């Protein structure tokens, strides 16, 4: 399966180049044109990314997630949810690298085939970092009023966390 994954990127790339060659496109010139646009896109999202990354680093360092987990855990453990996965559900929408680090420690402490590890894996594999996507996409086009984006995306995250827990408990 992971070998298959290695093929995807080179195949996509080669396929596009072959088609472009067949259509007699000035491949490298066109590439440079496009790549230049990438440079200005990166520049336009830089300020907001720095802002977001700093705020996320602050949340992680302050222990806020531990406090939230401590508050939520009594309720969720009533429903048989392992308390180790609660911080995962909280950090997943905020930080991609943070959730990978947390996943690593859950796997280390509970073993890769434990129920808790499986739930954490499903949580982390089945969604994207919500606030990162929102920040990057809107700041690239300087949209200030995001309207119902955050409520809808967070609702999807809540569904995601709930389903992750339920499905692993049912399947395994």
């Amino acid at each position, binding site marked *: 399966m992971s070998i298959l994954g290695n093929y995807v990127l080179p195949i996509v790339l080669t396929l596009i180049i072959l088609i472009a060659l067949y259509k007699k496109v000035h491949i490298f010139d066109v*590439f440079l044109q496009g*790549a230049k646009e990438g440079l200005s896109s990166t520049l336009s999202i830089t300020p907001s990314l720095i802002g977001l990354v700093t705020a996320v*680093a602050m949340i992680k360092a302050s*222990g806020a997630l531990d*406090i939230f987990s401590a508050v939520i855990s009594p309720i969720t453990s009533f429903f048989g949810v392992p308390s180790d996965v609660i911080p995962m559900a909280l950090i997943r929408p905020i930080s991609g690298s943070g959730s990978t680090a947390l996943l690593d420690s859950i796997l280390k402490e509970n073993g*890769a085939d434990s129920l808790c590890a499986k739930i954490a894996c499903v949580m982390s*594999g089945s969604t994207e970092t919500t606030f990162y996507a929102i920040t990057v996409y809107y700041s690239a*086009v300087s949209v200030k*009023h995001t309207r119902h984006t955050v409520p809808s995306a967070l609702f999807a995250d809540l569904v995601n966390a709930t389903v992750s827990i339920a499905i692993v408990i049912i399947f395994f």
Partner: protein
Amino acid sequence: MMNYIWSGMIIISFISACITGRMAELSNAILQGASNGITLVITMCGAMCFWTGLIKIADVSGVTRVLTRVLTPLLIKLFPDYKDNEKAKGAICGNIVANLLGLGNAATPLGINAMKEMSKTNPLRDTANNSMVMFVVINTASIQLIPTTVAMLRQSYGSNSPFDILPCIWITSIISLVFGIIMAKLLGRKSI
């Protein structure tokens, strides 16, 4: 909205650090965070330029047009504001395909490309229209066919079958994606 979320994160961090006594760590994180931000930007800049370059080749050679034709029925339903905008539909397609193939670092540049196309005909420049909201919501809940990071981590900690959670991951992401789309549609009925 981001105004409140950003200030909320900072204020919550300060209060939490007061409670947990981790003020030194917090102080460190503020300085470190900002420089981590620029590292992230530099890291992603390469992929960004590469993929915007490649998508330009795909555009010029007509690959995007073919993809768009295949996905059009779906695109019209999800992004009605752009049902006659070929360029925007093409850009959206690129992003969706990259997401499905699990090309994480291609999906973001292609997504930005799509947002730019959508923004060109957006009547209110600083306000997202329903289709833009839908696009971002879909990207926050994106579907990965092969979640490599997760499987690799599980393998390295000695899992017997690191891929046995794949069906669970697929089902979970589809369910949450559908709920995200429904929520965005419902909330989008309110006029701007």
